[in-house]
């Protein structure tokens, strides 16, 4: 399994969010836990996963991975990130 593969990348970014929403709907997690997890997902997890994929696709240097934490920085590579 490699983040180079689009489907694996999609799996990695959609599954946590889907699980969070499902657990919230079922009442297994509190709204506070959901909010903290969602912010962690939006600010750290998603940008880092995207950064690793961009690095594996040779679009950015390894040293540029932390730059993906800058909001909207990834958007310039949206085509490479989300193309199947």
């Amino acid at each position, binding site marked *: 399994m490699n983040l180079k593969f689009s489907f694996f990348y999609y799996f990695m970014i959609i599954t946590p969010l889907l699980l969070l*929403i499902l657990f*919230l709907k079922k009442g297994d997690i509190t709204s506070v836990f*959901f*909010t903290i997890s*969602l912010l962690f*997902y939006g600010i750290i997890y998603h940008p880092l996963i995207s950064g690793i994929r961009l690095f594996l696709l040779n679009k950015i240097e390894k040293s540029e991975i932390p730059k993906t934490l800058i909001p909207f920085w990834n958007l310039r590579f949206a085509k490479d990130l989300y193309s199947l």
Partner: protein
Amino acid sequence: MPSAEYSDTALNLKVGKLKNFYKMKKTHLMLSLLVIFIFSACNKKAETEELIKPENLQFSFLNDNETVIKISSSLSSFINSIHQIDPNIIMNEVDFNKSFIASEKGQIGEALGVNLKTRDTEIIYTFMLVRNGDKIGSPKLVAIENRKSIKYYDLESGTLLHLIIHDNKVEVMNSRYSHVNFQQRVFDCGQATANCIADAYSNHGWTSVWLGIQSAFLPQTAVAIAAACAAKNCL
């Protein structure tokens, strides 16, 4: 032939106008009925408000020790809040032997209360809990000033319902009063923000689905929603 055609068009126009007239009349009739209905409903409400008479109110002092303890323990946990509302209230001289229960005939809920002493003689303060069956609602502080103003401070949510009575009319105002401790306020605001975010992602049908998908592709959406909810609940 042209004259027959003309007369046909004229007839059609007349029929159309007549139809429009009836349509308008129908609309006017409907509107009038609606206005009458609203007015009658308002009048009914006014009548029911007038029906609340002193003889319908039941008042007695509490003999039940358990309930008195409930009132005193609830009051002790809101001492700071009450002191913040009015520092003139003397909290260590509350006479729990005069705790009372008040209800209206035919109504389900009942008010449990105790009067608080104050250095200010113009305002009467009552600490009140509303009991509905086994459930006890959030504690309130009621301040009555010269029978012209009644303030209901909700000690849990920090909301204030202010009734001003003048010329037999009651003016109602809703607002917030400054909450006691900053920590509690931050906690309330955080909890409300979390609830708002959870609600946005789970209780709005297709909008929630769209929000989930958009957050997966554009994670800044989650941050934007969090910011919007925080602004709504904390500012």
